């Protein structure tokens, strides 16, 4: 009897001990996790490029592990985490308008441009970053661009050259792909209507200007296939569903070099946009997160990204470091939104204007779309 009882007890002892150990371990485990941060980005080839460009070297240098998560933009999740006081995202790759809003709302930590690393030749960071991509909470890392592209298999006549051609149904009959958003489309419409790239936002500042943009969009409305996700336009072009489509330049580049798609990018009127890495307010791993953001802003980190995807540096000094695509050896300079020949008629998206007017414009766009 005694034997049976102690035998049973002995049998359970390891499990009990294990449970105790587990509970005791919880506390030090928290400390150990400080050496790992969660970085949230856009997924796909862009996140993979960042990972290869500098995540690995960051971990090698600092010993801080990076856990990569994907999201689809927007501030809802960050706001929920900050409001609940339970922050588990440490660094988030935000679009400029969202980043600015988040900064205003205090959802992300301050990070002045002066705190970022110096340029290639020791330039002061505040001089190396273009002023319109600097906020109190972070500064633009890479440029990506919305361009329009066509499939040379299907569009065989004289090629389109300008944004005006995109809106010209007579010269280029057929359906066009556009993002289901007023973003970029209003700028494209005004460019096509003859507004100079640097005058776009002064025209949009008046309600007549917005009317003018919508009126131009009206002319092709019936021929537009509206896309939602960045992966859609290359597919639409490859399937011949549309004759040309607006698209992110990186996606088209990938289709060109990795899948040998006969796509051609028209750089005229390319809409430059950027985003920055932000530290979520109140993260318990603030120091590690800050280290990471600073590392990511080093000129060589940013230049490295262009080995994997055709997104160019926002800060000026690393632009010269852009070399060739690692997987295929293609020279990257002609594919960069930031190469001088591609920049001649580029529009820099004014995210300040967009964050002020987005709700109204979006609503108007929705109403227009539904008609």
């Amino acid at each position, binding site marked *: 009897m005694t034997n049976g009882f102690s035998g049973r007890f002995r049998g359970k002892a390891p499990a009990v001990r294990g449970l105790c150990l587990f509970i005791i371990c919880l506390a030090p485990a928290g400390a150990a996790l400080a050496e790992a941060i969660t970085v949230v980005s856009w997924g796909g080839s862009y996140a993979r490029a960042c990972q290869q460009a500098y995540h690995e070297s960051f971990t090698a240098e600092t010993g801080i592990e990076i856990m990569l998560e994907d999201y689809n933009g927007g*501030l809802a999740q960050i706001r929920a985490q900050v409001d609940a006081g339970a922050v588990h995202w440490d660094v988030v790759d935000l679009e400029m308008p969202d980043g600015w809003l988040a900064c*205003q*709302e205090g959802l992300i930590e301050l990070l002045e441009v002066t705190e970022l690393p110096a340029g290639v030749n020791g330039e002061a960071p505040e001089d190396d970053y273009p002023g319109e991509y600097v906020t109190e909470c972070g500064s633009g890392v890479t440029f990506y661009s919305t361009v329009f592209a066509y499939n040379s298999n299907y569009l065989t006549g004289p090629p389109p050259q300008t944004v005006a051609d995109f809106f010209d149904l007579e010269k280029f009959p057929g359906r066009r792909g556009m993002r289901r958003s007023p973003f970029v489309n209003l700028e494209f419409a005004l460019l096509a209507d003859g507004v100079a790239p640097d005058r776009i936002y002064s025209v949009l500042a008046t309600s007549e200007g917005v009317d003018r943009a919508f009126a131009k969009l009206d002319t092709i409305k019936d021929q537009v296939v509206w896309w*939602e996700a960045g992966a859609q336009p290359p597919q639409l072009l490859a399937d011949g569903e549309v004759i040309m489509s607006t698209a992110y330049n990186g996606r088209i580049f990938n289709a060109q070099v990795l899948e040998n798609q006969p796509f051609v990018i028209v750089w005229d009127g390319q809409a430059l946009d950027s985003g920055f890495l932000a530290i979520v307010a109140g993260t318990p791993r603030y120091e590690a997160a800050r280290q990471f953001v600073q590392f990511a802003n080093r000129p060589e980190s940013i230049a490295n990204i262009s080995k994997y995807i055709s997104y160019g540096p926002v800060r000026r000094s690393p632009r010269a470091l852009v070399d060739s695509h690692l997987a295929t050896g293609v020279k990257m300079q002609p594919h960069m939104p930031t190469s001088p020949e591609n920049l001649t008629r580029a529009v820099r998206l004014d995210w300040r204007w967009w964050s*002020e007017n987005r709700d109204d414009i979006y609503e108007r766009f929705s109403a227009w779309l*539904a008609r």
Partner: protein
Amino acid sequence: MKRILHLSAATPRLGALALVLPLLAFVTVSFVIPLGTLLGKSAYQPEVARVLPQTITELREWTGDGLPSEDAFAAMARELTALGENRPELARVSGAINRVQSGMRGVLNRTARRLARTGQAGSWRATLTGIDSSWEEPATWLAIREAGARFTLRHYLHALDLEQRSGGGIAPKAADERVYTPLMWRTLLVSLGVTLLCLAIGYPIAYMIAASPPARGRILLLLVLVPFWTSLLVRTTAWIVLLQRQGVINGFLVSLGLVPDDGRLQMIYNMTGTFVAMTHVLLPFMVLPLYSVMRSIPKSHMAAAVSLGAAPLQAFRRVYLPQTLPGIGAGSLLVFILAIGYYITPALVGGRTGELISSQIAYHVQTSLNWGLAAALSSILLVAVTVLYLVYSRAIGIERMRLG
């Protein structure tokens, strides 16, 4: 003794309560609280009144004609100065006011920043109008007063495409400015259409499964259920491959010569795409309740009706159909409610004309962060669904509903 008896009677009741407690807690946490918060958010927004209490008090005394008093300017300036220290609070307040009138976010941020640097210059009125000319416009103050109301139906007005006229009174917006009501009607109509389509397709399928010998019935049922096991995105993408202009169906029609190559049918990125994809996705929700009801109807009922002199169609209409009503009701209700909330499928294949209200709700939750409006839109949908549910339970009786 009496007490013991009393206790022994009470214990099982307590025990039962304890057993139900986890369920109650679950329902509260997962249903009552979120729903309450949702309804609350749509009509209650205390931020502005909490952060700018003096300004709002002053503005309440203002008639709305011309500009408010110097006291109001002073209160605004003092409170903005104080806020300058508190970025998140300022952002939240300027965001809330910006939603009433665009551009106010910039005005408030600019003013707060400048006030912190320069302080008062002359009267407060002169100081503020010196910083930004918007302070000279009554509309600015109206917007602040409006945003300062703790309880507001503004989001509901907005969601119903109504606007407050300057002279008081509420009127619908101009037809080309309406965003949400057309989408809501469209959502209701599409959901209704999808429900009818699911019924039209699902009824014969369910009948076939119920009438088949068990072995074949199982295989047919499996075929209906297979879509359940595929990811929604994969299913939707499959429809894109099938329906697009260069897709399988168009290719087939062109190769048969039924459709000219330059006149390929547009079956996706429009209402057709939404209908086809949603009907496919939601079909099992119609078939399963119908099948479960049909299986329980003895085959002899139809035979009996025919033997009593009813023609087959008449027998179906008078005897079989009425007995499947609970299944029709359950399936339709299920499909309709799911369709109303559908988001991904219409967004991917609906194009411009196939978009539904839920994508607007998602936009306001995720991107514009206008949760008040999102909550108001959701609440209106909730009311619509509840009304339909009540109509249903009156018409058919909810206790007769059979879900499977």
